[in-house]
Structures are given as C-alpha cells and as structure tokens.
C-alpha cells in the first residue's frame, strides 16, 4: 500500500445473489483528502462503504483502509475509522452528552480521556450549549453535527459519511460542510457520499457510480472539462420557439431546450458564441434576446455520465 494513500480499493466487487451491487471498482483516496462518492440511489455507494468499513466482506477484489485489509482484518479497520451511517447515528431518547459518551465508550475511551474528548467535540461542533438537551428534540442539522462529532470522538484517521446531509436545510448543510473541511485541514481523510451535487464541489476529488460501476473519478474541474466539453448558454427573451427549432437544425448545436421562460443551449464552443446565437434567434422573430455563458456544473457532469452509462448498458444488452 502506498503510504500516501488512506484507502485503496482494487477490483472490488460485491454480489447479492444474482445482483451485482458493486462491480469491479478500483480507486484510491489520499491522506487528508475529501473524497466524494456520488451516484443515484442503488448505484452501490452504501455497499462500497460497507465493504470499506468491514461490515460486508467483498465477493472479490481487495481493499485496505488505514493500512488494514478489510477482509482479513475488519477489526483493525473498525478501530481506525469513524462511520456515520445513512439510517442511524444517534439515540434520540438520550441527551447529547450521553450520546457522545456512549460512542466514546464504544471505541474504548474511558474516564478523563473520554470527558476531555467529549468536551472538545462539543466545542468543535458548536454544541456545548445543547449538551444536556434530549437529542430527539433538536433540529436535524444539529443532530447531524452531533453524529459527525460522535464519529470523530476517538480521533480516527478516516471518517466515512454516508449521505450525512440528507434531509437537512441548506444553512445547516453549509455549517456541516465547514466542519468537514475543518476535519480535512486537521489531516483527517473524509470519504463522503451525497445526493447534493452542489456539495460535491467541496470535494477535492469525486467518484461517480452508475449501476455498481465507478464510471468517472477526478477533481470537479477536470470532470467538467472531460464530461461537459460543450458550452452551455442560457438565453432569455420572447418568441424563442421558432429560433430554437432553427438552432437545432444547425451544425454544432447539440441541444436547445426550453428552460423556464428562456432556452438552455449546449453548443460546440469552437463554432458558436453568444453573438452568433443571438443573431439566429433574432432572425427567427426573437425579441429582447440576451445570452449568458454558464459555467458547467457537476449536475451537467452527472447527467452526461449517467446518460453514457445508460447507453453503455443498452449497448451491452443488445450485444449477443
């Protein structure tokens, strides 16, 4: 294992009966990096995490986490990592402080050490004022911070966060991600799955899963360059319908879809710019036309990746 790597997965697969949940996945995560793992529900994100944290044995392939092989030394893995599961992380009937003490105890912390770490984590997560509050009575965002705090109480070198911000309001999500970045700056490796593509921008690198396969892996900027080579133009104006049809017929225009009151265009940047689009639209009766060049988002990347994944699968099914 490369000493600069926190996680290494090599041709990792997991089969449930005839269903291949994770299919031949290889990647590595560097120390201290925030690694985002993206994919639709059922794409195999949670299954991958469950293999990496020693809960599920891989059907084939190997992975090592913090220097421990997940199949032969799951206990070594468990002691070295923190995990915040998608479904549950806290006992809602217990006070905040007792949840921390419990998870600290579960990792073998005891007495003064435990008390000191619990205080530090309360401070870190900004929960000191809520320490006596019953967990279930707190809003979701605060609970997620507490869950993260419980997962890092024992100073793990890697934390796995499975959909940590699901169902949390945007402000709480922002403060949660500040915490994640703090952890990463402190040297902790963060492996995080998420649905929210805006959050994925915070990750240093992103892996994209489609139907159990890891189909793309790179930094957000590189992913955008590779997967969204088209220029995206946002057009506003009136009477654009005829113009859209005219644009679609021209070479170098890959898509022209209605978007709100305007149009969403994807064009070849070599052939088209804002002025050229405007000329075509105005010639077809468009009025008050304004064109804005949009930076590609991870959502565009995601749609492109999923689209190609689906095409690949369709091709596979057709092939004899």
């Amino acid at each position, binding site marked *: 294992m490369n000493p600069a790597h926190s996680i290494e997965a090599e041709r990792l697969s997991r089969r449930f009966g005839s269903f291949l949940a994770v299919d031949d996945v290889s990647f590595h995560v560097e120390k201290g990096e925030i690694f985002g793992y993206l994919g639709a529900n059922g794409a195999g994100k949670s299954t991958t995490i469950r293999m990496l944290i020693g809960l599920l044995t891989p059907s084939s392939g190997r992975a090592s986490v913090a220097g421990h092989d997940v199949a032969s030394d799951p206990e070594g893995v468990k002691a070295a990592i923190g*995990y915040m599961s998608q479904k549950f992380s806290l006992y809602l*009937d*217990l006070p905040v402080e007792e949840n921390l003490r419990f998870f*600290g*105890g579960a*990792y*073998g*912390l005891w007495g003064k*050490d435990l008390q000191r770490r619990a205080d530090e984590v309360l401070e870190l997560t900004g929960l000191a004022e809520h320490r006596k509050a019953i967990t279930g009575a707190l809003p979701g965002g605060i609970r997620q911070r507490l869950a993260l705090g419980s997962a890092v109480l024992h100073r793990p070198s890697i934390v796995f966060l499975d959909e940590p911000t699901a169902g949390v309001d945007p402000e709480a999500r922002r403060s949660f991600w500040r915490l994640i970045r703090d952890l990463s700056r402190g040297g902790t490796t963060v492996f995080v799955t998420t649905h929210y593509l805006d959050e994925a921008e915070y990750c240093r690198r992103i892996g994209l899963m489609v139907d159990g396969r890891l189909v793309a892996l790179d930094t957000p900027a590189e992913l955008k360059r590779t997967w969204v080579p088209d220029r995206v133009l946002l057009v506003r104006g009136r009477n654009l319908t005829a113009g859209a049809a005219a644009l679609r017929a021209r070479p170098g225009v890959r898509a022209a879809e209605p978007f709100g009151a305007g149009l969403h265009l994807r064009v070849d940047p070599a052939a088209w710019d804002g002025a050229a689009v405007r000329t075509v639209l105005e010639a077809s009766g468009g009025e008050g036309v304004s064109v804005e060049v949009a930076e590609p988002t991870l959502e565009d990347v995601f749609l492109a990746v999923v689209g190609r994944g689906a095409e690949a699968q369709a091709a596979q099914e057709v092939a004899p």
Partner: protein
Amino acid sequence: MTLAGSRAGRFLARVGAIAWKEILHIRRDPRTLLLALAMPVVMLLLFGYGVSFDVDRIRLAVSDQDRTEASRRLAQAFTENHEFDPVGGDDADDADTIFRRHRAQAILVIPRGYEKDLARGGPARAQLLLDAADAVTAGQVLNKADAIALSESRRMASAPGISAAPSLQVKVSSRYNPEARSAVFIVPGLAAYLMAISAVLLTALTVAGEWERGSMEQLFASPVSRLEIVLGKLFPYLVVGLIQLLLVLGVGTNVFDVPILGSPLLVILAGVLFLAGMLGQGLLISVLAKNQLVATQAGSLSSLLPSLLLSGMLVPIDNMPAVLRLISRIVPARYMVDALRQILLKGNGFAQVWPDLLAMLVFAVAIVALATARFKRRIA
C-alpha cells in the same frame, strides 16, 4: 499506564458504555421499569389472595336432629376455627335446594340418637353432605372435615367416662406446607414465572429495538464485539430481574408468611443462573425476529406458556403425560421452581440443589452461545 490503554480496560469501557446506555434508556422510559417491578407484586397479590387454592370459610348448614349437648358440641367443632361458617336453615331434606341456591357448600347432618350412641361407646355417626360440583373445593372440604372429626373424637376419647373410637379415616397432612397454604406453594413458582417473562421480553425488545432503529449497524461498525454487546445488554436486565426476585420474595415472606429456610445467597445464585438463561432466550428471539412486534409475541409465548404450564408451578410435573414430562426437562423454569422450593421451604443447601443449578447453567451457556453464533451470521 491508564486503564483505557489496556485491552481489559477497553473491554470494560465498551461493556460499561453499553450497559450505561441501557440504564439511561430504562431511566428515560420509567413506565417499562414500573411495569417490570409492579407486575410481580400485583401478580403475587392476585395469586396469593384471589387465585387461592385454600378453601376457607366454607358455608355450612347444620341439620341437628339430635338436639343434644353432644350434637351441639360437634357442630361447634366445625365452626369454631372459621374453616366453616354456619348459615341458617337446617332442613336436611331440602339439601338439593340449599346446594342449588348456593346457600351452603356443605351440610352437616347429625342424626337422632347421636349422643346415645356416643354414650354407649360408639360408633356415633354424623353425615356431611358435600356440593362436589367444584371437585377441588370438595376434596379440600373433605380433608378438613376429616381432620375436625378426628380431633373431635380424640378429644372425646380423652374425656373421662366417654370412650369413642375414631370413626373416620384421616389423611396425613403434607410435611412442608403443613397448613397446605397455596401462597407458600405458589410464591417460588410465581417468582420463576415473572422473572422468565420480563427477562425474555425486556431483552427481546431492547435488542430488536437496535435492529429496528438501525443502530445495530452503527455498533457493528465500531470495534464493539458481539460478546461486549451481549454482556452490556444483559447486565442491566439481570439487575432488574434480581430486584424482581427480591420483591416477590419480600412480599411473599411479609404478606404470605413464606419461609426462607435456606441460604439467601443460594437463592440469588439460582436467580442469576435462571435469569442468564432467560435473558439469553430473549436475545436469541430478538436476533431471529429483528423487529419489536414479532419479538414481543415470540417472547411472551416462549416464556409465559412453558414457565406457567411446564414448570411444575401449577401442575405437578409427576402428574403430566410422559411427553410433557420430557419437554419440561428443557424448561429452565422447572429447575428454578424446584430449586426455590427446596431452598425456601425445605432449607436445602448446595449439596441438594446443585443438579437444578447445573441444569440452569447448561441452558444459559447453550442459549447465549447459540444467540451469539446467530448474531455473527447476520453481518457476514
């Protein structure tokens, strides 16, 4: 080196953390705890008073056709200890009416010439008519009447000038419960029964709850081992079970005068072994069921029925059909009831009770091992 730094220290920290969390859950849910502690007392009072097998204050109609001092003396012998309560109406010819209207459960008929027969040296005859619709009561009434008749004839035999031979067969009273009080008989059985139900149910619920909430996965993702989870979960409920045992015994001795002839420590030891088995049974159920509803059903059925019917608590094991006798051998409550009766009522020590203790130990080890093994398979 700190305690936390050692292997044993981490083990204790983890078991302690789980046990402490369980105690906090119990504290946050006082209703369950109250139920677990109030139920034994209420049940014991119900069984002790309400479901008593003792027959007391039997309504007795006396038909005295002799109307002499001796006949009045016999009637008084029946009623003076309040075992029989005299009711009015002494028309023996109308026995059917008396029984049908439930005016009396027994009628004592003393025929004309009773005193004369006694004076002649007997045998003097009196007749007791019984409403035997309730066979259990009738049997007990018969025993009591026998006892009274015997003591009465002994009294007369010792009186100068009169000699009367005992005219009725009298049974030997039971040795360990001389007054045949059902509380004495029922308390050991009830202790086992109540401990079985609440131990199985409480553990089944708490472990199934962890599955249901999804927290079990979180625990499995931590370095906590199966054994640590099991021990941490069982310990608080072991304490609850022992408190139940002490409560039942406390009420039993103070309210129903159940003796504790043997060693209280031996009682505790039997209690711990029995509870370990019952907690293990609850654990196994929750590992298999994984949801609280099914765990409740399976938990109550598997603890209530065997400990009520197959433990010898109500029905003596010797009176059971051979098949049930065989099944009762794997019911730990059977050994607990026997151990408790031996220790409490006979004052037996370890030398006599060890087979029961061993049987409960074997059951506990086997079922906890089985539960832990099943536990493991779930996460492979």
